[in-house]
């Protein structure tokens, strides 16, 4: 049974995508090419917890987030929300679910309707939450949300259009739209990757504030390990559709055990670090998720590869409390 304190639990989640190859191959030859975007992932997110999914392109981090929000169809597995399975077929359930679980997208230039004013955008979710609001109530809610998101004074922004706002301000509008519903759970997919370093911090702080003020849980999807480390309670490292390591943020940053996580942390670029670290630069690039290598899927690039890795796929096992690694021979590379 699920734990009471988890807002989201996913068990053995698989998401496959079929690649279209043209009529002849598909119908006559019956060849199918499948991309295993997410391959048997288990993960839970506690109430009021921030969990980051970190990985390179094609690691399945975005698909995992979208599958939880029912924006990508799962192939198999179970997704529990607040302890109960998500009833994707029930309209009433989904309506309530959408109010409680929200998504923030990467590109603030494309995710806001250019013909809507800020009020229209932020107040839109209020039209569907089953309550009727008076004009004043609506405006008050919108202003409250805008000011929370750092657009002060909120009144000044009500009648602006997205094109009048900077990238950072747009992302704040997205966050206000999310905040206005007081969701229990947010999936934020690379919310700051298109923003200048000078405004990133403020946006990230908003997520931490939502967590402390409203106990909102967050799944932070990013390729940037240092940002994940900055705000997360736990970090999961993904490679080719699987979680290869998961543990507390500090543990992943400093004492991770999976060779891939170690390589990833070793090449993080920082400002002003005098210590010459040993960088582990892997050769080549992530293989295609259509042809996933046999055994451990990382074995083709692993600096510590052994015979067993080529044939047997390692399961995630707990090597110390709350620290799970999917590797046959986890050790620190010195």
């Amino acid at each position, binding site marked *: 049974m699920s734990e009471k304190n988890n807002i989201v639990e996913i068990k053995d989640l698989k998401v496959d995508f079929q690649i279209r190859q043209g009529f002849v191959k598909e119908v006559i030859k019956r060849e199918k090419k499948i991309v295993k975007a997410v391959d048997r992932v288990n993960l839970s997110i506690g109430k009021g917890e921030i969990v980051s999914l970190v990985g*390179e*392109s094609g690691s399945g981090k975005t698909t995992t987030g979208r599958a939880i929000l029912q924006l990508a169809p799962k192939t198999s597995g179970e997704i529990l929300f607040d302890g109960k399975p998500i009833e994707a077929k029930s309209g009433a359930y989904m309506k309530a679910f959408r109010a409680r679980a929200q998504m923030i997208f990467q590109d603030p230039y494309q995710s806001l309707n250019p013909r809507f004013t800020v009020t229209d955008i932020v107040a839109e979710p209020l039209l569907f939450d089953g309550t009727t609001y008076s004009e004043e109530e609506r405006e008050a809610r919108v202003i409250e949300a805008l000011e929370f998101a750092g657009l002060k004074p909120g009144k000044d922004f009500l009648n602006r259009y997205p094109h009048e706002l*900077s990238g950072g301000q747009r992302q704040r509008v997205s966050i206000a739209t999310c905040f206005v519903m007081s969701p229990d759970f947010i999936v934020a997919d690379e919310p700051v990757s298109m923003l*200048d*370093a*000078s*405004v*990133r*911090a*403020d946006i*990230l*702080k908003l997520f*931490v504030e939502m967590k402390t003020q409203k106990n909102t849980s967050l799944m932070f999807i990013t*390729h*940037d*390990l*240092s*940002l994940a*480390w*900055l*705000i997360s309670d736990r970090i999961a490292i993904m490679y080719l559709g699987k979680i290869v390591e998961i543990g507390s*943020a*500090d543990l992943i*940053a400093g004492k991770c055990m999976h060779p891939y996580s170690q*390589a*990833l*942390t070793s*090449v*993080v*670029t*920082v*400002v*002003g*670090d*005098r*210590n010459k*670290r040993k*960088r582990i*630069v*892997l*050769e080549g*690039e*992530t293989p295609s998720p259509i042809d996933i290598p046999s055994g451990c899927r990382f074995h083709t690039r692993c600096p510590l590869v052994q015979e067993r890795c080529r044939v047997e796929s390692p399961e995630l096992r707990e090597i110390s409390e709350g620290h799970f690694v999917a590797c046959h021979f986890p050790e620190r590379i010195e």
Partner: protein
Amino acid sequence: MERDNILEVKDLKTYFKIREGIVKAVDGVSFELKHGESLGFVGESGCGKTTTALSIIKLLSENGYIESGKILFGGEDLAPLSENEMLSKRWNDISMIFQGSMNALNPVMKVGDQIIEAIRLHEPVDAKEARERVERLFKLVNIDTGLVDSYPHEFSGGMRQRAIIAMALACNPSLIIGDEPTTALDVMVQAQIIDLINDLRQKLNMSMIIITHDLSIISEVCDRVAVMYAGKIVEIGTVEEVIFNYKHPYTEKLIKAFPNIFGEREMVASIPGVPPNLLDPPKGCLFAARCHKKIGDICDRIQPELKEIGAEGHMVACHLWEAN
């Protein structure tokens, strides 16, 4: 011009004419680049770093023009040269890796042919010789030479970026400008490209200008760094000096906006406010409105000049240091 400098830019002003008036995108930028040196330009979007680079190779958009200033490259001023005269400079002497150019390769032309085309356009070599050179270049940037006849879609992102670097090196330029050469690459591929750039710098004694918004890249590939703000250089010096002994409040804020995963976990700080409108810049220091170390009235009235302070070549434009 000093003998060991390959490039000297003196009081460069590049403006853009738009309907509302004139945007002073680059306003009085001066710097020097020594042979074999790598200089980084860093700053927020819209601070003029790309415009500075485009001024050097003179690829400004139609409404942009060099208002005044000198661009001395190997002793010759590029600023007054015509488009035709510049044609022989680009690629042969100065080449540029544009932001996102790995996605601008011609999809219906073999990668090798695209590089051969560039070589033969600039040098009188025959097809065979050009092809041999492409193979040598592929080896240099670690791409399998068997892939010369492949199309861009058969290349991964990292390989396309390597091909773009090979193309930039094709005519043996003495200066390479890289505009965000590692942005939009995966973390591990970024690490590989950083290694490649450093490796090439050593092998070829390349002079480089690297433009990036990411200060952490600068420490990996540059010797010196220039911090730009609102069209001006506010601080310049060796990477070591600027990062560990920063003087300008903007540099300080910028450095503190980046987390250090190998240090203490503390929340990074944003820089409040936005850069000034370059159509009508304020009279005094351009950073004054956002500055946390403003010393008073003088900051709003007088624009501070870039002046050398202490350590060799470390210059800063701030009243705070002028007084001392």
